[in-house]
């Protein structure tokens, strides 16, 4: 997947409707959004505004009810579950608010897991995992289990897992939500570093302190992008 394709992500008229019993909930309505390669975008908005739904669609964890999604020049909104899993393994890195490390796997095994799903050979996997852990400063915790790490270390391990495969886009859902302010700042600094290294970052956050880290912020309200509420640091 070539990073030169511009925009890297193009959402056109994306809607997501959930049906529960006879109630229809519009989580996202007619979202149009372009994200360039290497861009650092923050998605913000109040609780229930559709941030997580947007991130799920961007991460191919979910499919839109309507609209088109083109990732690195390939339409992905109509892919089958298996195809989406392959794209996820190859192109997308996730960082969750709750870290979501697998408790029965060591730090190294957690980091190497997506590489395994990508079909990477054992030796290459080891190199990539080591490199990612070195980058987040956890190489010395290679064989520890998540329960043996602090919250901040767990999130750094989660970041290493997300970046080990050098994904096309890195999606972070409230990455500091479960951390104290010190650990939160460390993680945001890590993301900044990654961005400076060329990563495309889309971060969902409530925290105004971290909004400033992004080049651009998009505001969601009631499932819609709020017109004119975009900020673009570079443009500005």
């Amino acid at each position: 997947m070539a990073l030169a394709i511009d925009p890297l992500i193009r959402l056109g008229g994306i809607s997501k409707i959930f049906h529960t019993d006879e109630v229809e909930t519009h989580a996202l309505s007619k979202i149009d959004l372009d994200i360039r390669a290497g861009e650092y975008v923050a998605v913000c908005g109040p609780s229930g505004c559709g941030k997580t739904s947007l991130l799920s669609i961007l991460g191919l964890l979910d499919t839109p009810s309507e609209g088109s999604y083109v990732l690195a020049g390939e339409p992905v909104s109509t892919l089958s579950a298996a195809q989406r899993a392959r794209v996820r393994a190859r192109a997308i890195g996730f960082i969750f608010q709750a870290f979501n490390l697998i408790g029965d796997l060591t730090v190294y095994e957690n980091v190497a897991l997506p590489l395994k799903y990508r079909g990477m050979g054992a030796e290459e996997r080891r190199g990539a995992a080591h490199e990612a852990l070195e980058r987040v400063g956890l190489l010395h915790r290679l064989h520890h289990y998540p329960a043996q790490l602090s919250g901040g270390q767990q999130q750094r391990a989660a970041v290493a897992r997300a970046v080990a495969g050098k994904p096309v886009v890195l999606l972070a859902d409230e990455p500091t939500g479960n951390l104290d302010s010190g650990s939160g700042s460390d993680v945001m600094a890590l993301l900044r570093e990654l961005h400076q290294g060329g990563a495309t970052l889309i971060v969902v956050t409530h925290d105004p302190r971290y909004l400033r880290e992004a080049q651009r912020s998009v505001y969601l309200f009631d499932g819609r992008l709020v017109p004119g509420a975009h900020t673009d640091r570079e443009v500005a």
Partner: protein
Amino acid sequence: MDAFWRDLRFALRGLGRSPAFTAIAVLTLALGIGANTAIFSVVNAVLLRPLAYAEPDRLVALSSGFSARGVTNAPISAPELNDYRREVDALQDASGAWPININLTGYGEPERIAAAVVSPNFFSVLGVPPALGRDFTNADAGGRIGYVALISYELWQRRFGGDPSAIGKTVRLDDDPMTIIGVMPKGFRHPIENTASPLELWAPIDLTNPDPDFVNNRQARVLSVVGRMKPGRTVAEVQRSLDALRDRWYEQYPDAYSRSAGWRADVLPLPERLVGKVRPALLILLGAVGCVLLIGCANVANLLLARATTRGREIAIRTAMGGTRRSIIRQLLTESLVLAALGGALGLLIAVWGTSALSDLAAVYLPRAREIGIDRPVLAFTAALILVTGVGFGLLPALQASRPDLQSVLKDSGKGMTAGARRNRLRSGLVVLEVALALVLLAGAGLLLRSFERLVRVEPGFNPDGLLTLQIWLPWPNAPEKGRYFTPRQRLGFYDRTVAAVEAVPGARQVALAAQLPLRGQNEIGFDIVDRPVDPDEPSRTAEFRPVTANYFEAMEIPLIRGRTVGVQSDSTAPVDAVINRTMAAKYWPNEDPVGRQLRLFGPKGPLANIVGVVGDVRQVRLDLPAKEEIFVSMRRFTFQQAAFVIRTDGRPDELAGAVTRAIRTVDPEQPIFGVMPMTRVLADAGAERRFSLLLLTLFAGIAFVLSVIGIYGVMAYATSQRRHEIGIRMALGAGSREVLGLVLGQGMRLVGIGLVLGLSGAWALSRVLTSQLYGVSARDPLTYLTVAMLLGAVALAASYLPARRAMRVDPMSSLRSE
């Protein structure tokens, strides 16, 4: 006490709130406890309950044997019994019984009954007096066989409606008028009897009669003997005396006691003699139901562990509110005990039905089968089982649940990673245990099944299909010369007339007679080969002796290999025609034609017999033993009171039974006819012992199999539901459905694999236990082990596949969101 009632109320309320859980747990326990209770009721009746005789631990069974021929538990002769009574100091007394068939007539429908002529001290040795009337006295025997009889309670009820005036009544037994002098107590059993037909009548015989043509013959070994030891004396002391007598008799009576044949006299405690043979099979079954119960307990423990997880918050709150660990364990154990009690109550109902079925199933071969039932010891066993299982399956979950991580449960923290695996490890261990136990049982059942299949496929040496059989016992009164069937001519006349009458029945294609049916007992004789004396080191020559009619081989479809069959032999002075079987021909004339050779039957003074033919082997004694040497002679030369009809029919043999019986009655309306059944049934009865073990072990293995598969499914379904979040993460990280399927199946099959390895090792280690129950298959038969392991593995795979399919459908977003 208040705490107990409170715990009980909570337990009932809690179980009532989870009816599905309660129902599954109770049903599982009911199966386990019910099966255990039923089998224990058999073990209790057969092995544990003291014999219903006075001081049964002082009773012994005396028998003879021939080491060289592998013969054990053979009867003994009257002179031997008399010597034992005189010379074995450790014996207080001993009695002899000679089981016979007898025809009861003159009081309603003629009936053949199993009876015994017994020494007058028979009941006093057992220490059981009649319930009604009086016991025998020496005078009753009148020097030979007395004209008085004691009858069983059951016969009294059946033929006399329980009327006390039956005492003093005269009935005709083998045409002799016999006066009933007493009725034995209800449930009294002759100590050593044919389990298929219990003895119902006893008449006294004078075993001290000096007439060698009556009973005073050391080689006329017909008596089963029960002795009563003096208080404080031991079986070993009796055996020492018997050994001394044996050594003396070798010198004193060399004709009667062959040292080369290894003649010996044996003594065993009476219970051992009665049930020693069936003990291994019963203990195997007890072990098998124990495994079923363990598997059931593992399943219920798993359910409780899962329930404890969902109740973690409730327990944490109780603890936080000041509840002690002890009080929580007590509460949880009360719940398990209530479950076990409910399961036990239902299990008892299953056992009541089961014991009745077992009693019927086992009646043909299991001694004391009619005593099987639910009594106080069985109820106590069930109660103990309830207590042990209740604590057994409840303790571990209770211990684990009573130690909650309060912070974690109450604050719902620890969300940064998926859940730890402590509880899962215990659950997984239980699944491994279940699979291992189920495999052990399946391997056992598989071996028995293969063994039984081999046995069913054994060629009996004749074609049983389309054959109807029945038996006749011609009356033999105490003064035989006065009887209707005393002379061979009289007996032959009767047989000729009945054969003609049966041949006239439409559908009866061929009617033949034999003194005895195959697989209905032994009739071994000694013989010599003319011009080939017995080598001094050679054991005496013996063979099965089978008088038959000339058309017997054709009717039975026994192949004639050489020569001809026995002739009509109407000339009683002509040499006897003898047909031998292939085994005998191969043993004595391996490279020669035996036809034309001569035998001397029964000993040096016996009649000469010309070998006129060789026929195929017939399994005369047991299906699982190779054919022995057999000599067939004409029934016209050797005509007994006892005869068996074999009727080759055109249609289904049982459809002819009524017409054949009526035809025989036209010849002699007072002649009882018994054992009317297709020959296939005779064969089936011969395999009854193995069928009993096979049916039960297969049943228990089946239950174990189903329970363990349910257990595997339950654990995998639960583990998968617990791993939803993890699966969501893996899917977010790029795992496809194939990886998820592999993950869940891998987890399940890893447990199953460990269980299979342990189970195979266990089955291998226990294989020796089954050896005595097998035929034609090794107790370590790799094919059986492999087949059952693959079967269990395949079904376990299917049980894991269902949760795995559900896991494949996990929506990663919703599972991550729900977290």
